[in-house]
Every structure is written in C-alpha cells, then in structure tokens.
C-alpha cells in the first residue's frame, strides 16, 4: 500500500495577509482577525474591565491598525503594532467613559473571596474562577495607566520585554521598571493568595 502525503497549504504570513487585504480580499481580514482577536480582546478587557467596552476597543484598534498601515512601516511585527493600537484605543476609551468593571452580585468581601479560593472544592470551581478573575481585574485597577498597559501587554498578550518596549515606545529598562512596580502593587493588593 502506498502512502499518500498531502502537503499542507502554506500558512500566509501577516505581511501576505495585509497585502491581500489591501487588494480587497475580505478573507484576509477574517484570518487576521481570527489570529489576533483573542490577544487584542484580553488586553482591552484587562484595561477596561467589561466585555462591551473591550469589544469596542478591539474594533477601534483593528480599524485604526488597518487604515493606518503607513504608520506601521514594518518596524515591528504586525501583532505588536496591532496591540499597541488596541491598548491605546482602550486607554482612550477608558478615559472617555471611565473604567467600568463588571459589578459582582456577590456581596462578599475580598477577604471572604480569598478564603474560598484557598479551599479545593470542585463543585465550586466555576464560581472560584469567576471570583478570581474579578479579583485580578480589581487588582489591575490599582495600577497607573502605563503600569497597567505594560503589565497587560506582557502578561496577557504574551509579548516579550522588547516587544512591549516597541509597543509602548519606551526602553526595555523602562519596561522592567514598570513591571516591577506593577507587580509590587498587585502583590500588595492580592495579599495572601500570592504568598501561597
């Protein structure tokens, strides 16, 4: 029996997709959106605290990134460029609308949440994740805009220090400094949960 090897179609690069998009191929936009929507959304959500505003920032960021490609000029990866635009759009939106976090119907205090989180109750795992997510978002709200942007681009978007520096137009040293102070504040807020 002879084996048949099917060659996988080559995965188009971001540059190729941008070229196809400029030529009017909507499928190229679909692919670019699919590739980076999650990272963009996570960054925007961490900066804004709610889904509706985050999706608005994602939309605004993608539109600006795609209609101002002359500003991109290939000096960084498209992902870095896109996340720079999305995070700035999110910060602008946050200043305009005010950062609105999802209000929890649970009236528990942060200390009560911490105590629940220390237990290993499988039946409460779904609530536990949601509570911890809210706690993390509350912790992020204690940071300044630049600290939050730097930390979120690193932790949630998965950019390297160098890429974060490119996205925020700063040096790697500044990124390291901002991350350090951001973590200090986050640890102070999250308290015992981090120490365990």
């Amino acid at each position: 029996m002879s084996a048949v090897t099917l060659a996988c179609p080559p995965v188009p690069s971001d540059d190729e997709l941008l070229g196809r998009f400029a030529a009017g191929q909507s499928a190229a936009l679909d692919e670019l959106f699919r590739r980076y929507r999650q990272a963009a959304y996570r960054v925007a959500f961490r900066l804004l605290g709610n889904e509706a505003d985050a999706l608005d920032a994602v939309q605004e960021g993608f539109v600006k990134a795609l209609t101002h490609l002359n500003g991109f000029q290939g000096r960084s990866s498209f992902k870095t460029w896109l996340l720079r635009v999305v995070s700035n759009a999110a910060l602008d939106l946050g200043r305009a609308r005010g950062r609105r976090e999802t209000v929890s119907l649970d009236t528990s205090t942060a200390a009560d949440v911490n105590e629940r989180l220390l237990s290993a109750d499988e039946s409460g795992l779904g609530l536990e994740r949601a509570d911890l997510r809210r706690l993390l978002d509350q912790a992020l709200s204690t940071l300044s805009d630049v600290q939050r942007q730097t930390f979120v681009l690193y932790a949630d978007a998965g950019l390297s220090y160098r890429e974060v520096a490119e996205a925020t137009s700063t040096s790697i040293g500044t990124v390291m400094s901002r991350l350090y102070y951001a973590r200090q504040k986050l640890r102070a807020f999250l308290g015992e949960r981090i120490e365990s």
Partner: protein
Amino acid sequence: MTRNWHNPQRPTPAELAAWVEGELDAADAARVEAWLHEHPDDAADAEASSRLTSLFREYPPADPSPEAWKLTLAHVAARAAVPGTGNNRRPRWQALLLIGLAAAAAVLACVVATRALWPTQGGRVDERIAARPKLPPEDDNDEPFAVASAGEIDILQMDAKDAGRLMIGQLLEPFVIASSEDVELVNAEPGDEGMMPRLQKEPFPMVVVVRADKEP
C-alpha cells in the same frame, strides 16, 4: 531603577524578575546567575513575581460569544474597507487636501448664503452717515428708536420712572448712527459730579439719548 550603590554587582529586583522570565540578554543573564550562585535566596522574591504573571495568564478574561466576535468583525470590515478602491487607502496628503477643499467650499457656501439672506449696508460708518437724509431742524424726532431688537432684551426689573427712557420697539428699518456734526451744543450743564460734557470737533459716530425730563 537604579543599581544598589553599596554593591553595584547586585542585580536590581527588576533584573532578577527579568532573569526568572528569561528576558535578559546573555551578558546580563550571566551576571545575575553569578550573583545568584552566591546568594540563592535573592531569587525567591523574583520567583514570586513570576508566579504573579502566571496567575494572570492562567485566569484570562472569558472570551466573548461567537456572535459577538462575528458582529465585531463585521463592524471592522465595514469601517476598514474603502468602497471602489478595494481596501487601498488614499495617501494621507490626498485625504487632507480633500478635507481642506471640502471645508473651504462649505465656508464659501455659508458666506454666500449669509449675504443673500442678510444683505449688509456695506461701506464705512461715516459714508453711511453722510448719505442719510437731513432732518428738518424743527423735527424733535420724539418717536423712540430701537437700539436692540425686542428678542434681544429681557427686562428683569425696572423702576417706573425709567419707563420713559428705556426705548424698546420693533426695528422697522436700519437706523443710522448720528455723528457729532448732527449735534449742536446749545447749553451745557455740569453733571451730578460737576463734570462738564464736551463734544469733540472732529465728526465721529455717536448715539444721542435724550432724557425725558430735558428739552433736546
């Protein structure tokens, strides 16, 4: 973040965190590793910071629904596409030029419409004064003339004695501001503060308000 003055070789906390996360270049990483070989306890704080990053990555925000993704993509596609030119955008200078021309055309249209609806008298004030018809000297012109249109005035409070002096009326035709040539100083009396009124010799526009209790 400044280095430790007492021991410049000691890595900063930020450098330790960067080393834990694999973000230092080779030279700095070697320096930090050399330090940690002698001071292994210094890594503990950096490792705690790294766990913090992992915590955020382990608990990311919940993804939106497929419908929300689809709607967002549709909005992006609608706003990012340029009809008629594929998805190519005009060069920035062309876009700015078009915007400038459109703004100039709008301003010109407003000016033309304004002049058509509200024609102005034009000319300098003194030319308009010179062109106005001379009034007979006996005409005391005791009809009140409007200094403002009725819609521009809100009378909040007034004394009854001021009613004869406050002239309010419907402006039927443009009024002409008098000049000093139209006024002959017959008699002058000092005011309450002892100041004498004075008319300048050169003709200049002025508004003369006749007091109700005085002869003009």
